[in-house]
């Protein structure tokens, strides 16, 4: 049943990616592609900023693709969680654990083969996602979560983590449905904090500071395509970063002062020595970050698999 469900889900995903991926390529292989090689005035002349924005908005399906983050969890919900729980629930463990091979061997072989299976499916999914995202990667890079979570090593690491978590939970909980629910919660409880709290700090962010300029917008980087921007704002001449309160004070002072200053509020801010800053992770850290994140999840996989094997071998199950 679960296998059928998984095949259907993956076929739907594959179908969706094929149906949207081909038009996306067609849209990309025109002016958008040209814009990527332009800089400076030429970039501005072709109104590339707008073209790229438009392409991003149209092509990326951000809202929908976010749900794809649940796909690796399926390995835990439908393969991992029932693995031992279903046996205990139906009493078939009394059949299979009293055959000629020990249950230690039984569980080791099962885990090994299923880890292999999940890895193969996850790698295939990654390959399709990487093909699908290729045009988007040219525009926005792949260090942003929407790219990072679906390319390289991470999808496979997530899927194996979900599988190992499901297997461990199912072994302890002994009921398939509660095990599935707990596995989903557990998966999210690790996956989100790692993405939001740990990943931005795998390496110290790079900070770029420049003079405040309204025309350059808030981004002081020369060429920041593909960087993962963590935060940005204003700092005063002593490099003190302004809090929100200080910012609104500054803005009201600027609009008051603008009356007396030539060039308006922007000129006021510039004149008073305020600077723009941006904290970001450079695009070229993609593989380092992939390695770190995969290592985190794969260590959890090893721990959980070891725990499952130990529990199956050592605990009573009458």
């Amino acid at each position, binding site marked *: 049943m679960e296998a059928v469900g998984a095949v259907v889900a993956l076929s739907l995903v594959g179908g969706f990616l094929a149906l949207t991926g081909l038009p996306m390529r067609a849209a990309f292989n025109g002016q958008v592609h040209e814009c990527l090689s332009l800089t400076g005035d030429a970039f501005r002349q072709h109104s590339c900023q707008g073209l790229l924005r438009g392409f991003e908005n149209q092509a990326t399906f951000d809202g929908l693709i976010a749900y794809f983050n649940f796909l690796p969890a399926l390995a835990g919900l439908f393969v991992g969680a029932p693995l031992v729980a279903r046996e205990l629930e139906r009493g*078939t463990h009394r059949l299979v654990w009293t055959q*000629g091979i020990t249950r230690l061997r039984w569980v080791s072989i099962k885990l090994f083969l299923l880890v292999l299976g999940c890895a193969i499916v996850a790698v295939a999914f990654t390959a399709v996602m990487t093909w699908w995202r290729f045009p988007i990667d040219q525009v926005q890079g792949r260090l942003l979560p929407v790219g990072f979570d679906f390319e390289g090593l991470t999808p496979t690491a997530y899927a194996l983590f979900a599988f190992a978590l499901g297997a461990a939970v199912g072994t302890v909980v002994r009921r398939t449905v509660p095990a599935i629910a707990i596995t989903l919660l557990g998966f999210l409880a690790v996956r989100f904090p790692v993405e939001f709290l740990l990943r931005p700090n795998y390496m110290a962010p790079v900070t770029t500071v420049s003079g405040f300029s309204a025309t350059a917008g808030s981004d002081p980087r020369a060429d920041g395509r593909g960087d993962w921007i963590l935060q940005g704002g204003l700092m005063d001449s002593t490099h003190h970063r302004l809090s929100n309160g200080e910012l609104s004070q500054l803005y009201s002072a600027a609009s008051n002062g603008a009356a007396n200053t030539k060039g308006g509020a922007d000129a006021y801010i510039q004149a008073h020595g305020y600077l723009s800053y941006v904290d970001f992770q450079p695009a070229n850290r993609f593989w380092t970050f992939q390695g770190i994140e995969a290592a985190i999840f794969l260590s959890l996989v090893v721990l959980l698999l070891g725990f499952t094997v130990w529990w199956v071998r050592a605990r009573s199950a*009458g």
Partner: protein
Amino acid sequence: MISALQAQRLSKRYGHAWALRDCTLNIPPGRVAALVGPNGAGKTTLLHLAVGLIAPTAGDVEVFGWSPRRQPTVVLARVGFLAQDRPLYRFTVEEMLALGRRLNPRWDDALARRRLSAVGVPLRRRTDKLSGGQQAQVALALALAKRPELLLLDEPAASLDPLARREFMEGLMEAVAEDGLTVVFSSHVLADLERVCDYLVILSAAHVQLAGDTDEMVARHKRLTGPRCDGESIGRVHSVVQALHTDRQTTLLVRTNGHIYDPSWTVSDVLLEDVVLGYLRAPGVHALPKPQVVSDSEWVP
């Protein structure tokens, strides 16, 4: 001689409740032993301990001298186990055989097929589409194709209709006759016992009440009928298992300790079923003083 199944003060506790307590027994090889007792007496617990599904809280259990938990490879290769309600995967019978082949180093495929075709089980059908009797035959064929030296069966015939039960027990006895394997099965169908088993273990409230060779057990127990009395004088030499009183008459089930000389009693033989029922109705009887040990059978206090 190494026992097929030996337990030394074997105990299993779940929370505060003892499922089995201080169980000591010794089933010699080559026997067909029945494990009887009311529900919750510890029959399933004892079998699960013997096959290593659960670990004892205290005491030891050994199968041909090996521990099922510490030496599972050795024990599992020698033990066939048929769990209660005959768990099977929702596979075809053919696929179940393939599973057995893969999970057992000593697997006798021909034996399984011979047995299944003899009882007319269709190999292409899925196990959940089979009748209860056929499922039991599949489970038995799987257990026997392992070529076990000890076969443990947990209520194998319960929930089967009388015909299927008879067929099942016959199949089982055939296998015993062919291979001389030791069998331990739990049952509460007393009618099966006399025909089938030659060794009996009575469990009650987590304790072993009585264990031993059935012939000796039958020979040692007598029914005493006489004028109404409290049976105290007879109880000084022999052990009164059960006493029934009418207005004028007293009938005793007695475990004898030698000859009965008192001429006021009429002594008659009993059936195995009478012995079993007598003990099951008197779950406290195992607390009697320990009688002398008779050869090859153990009387457990």
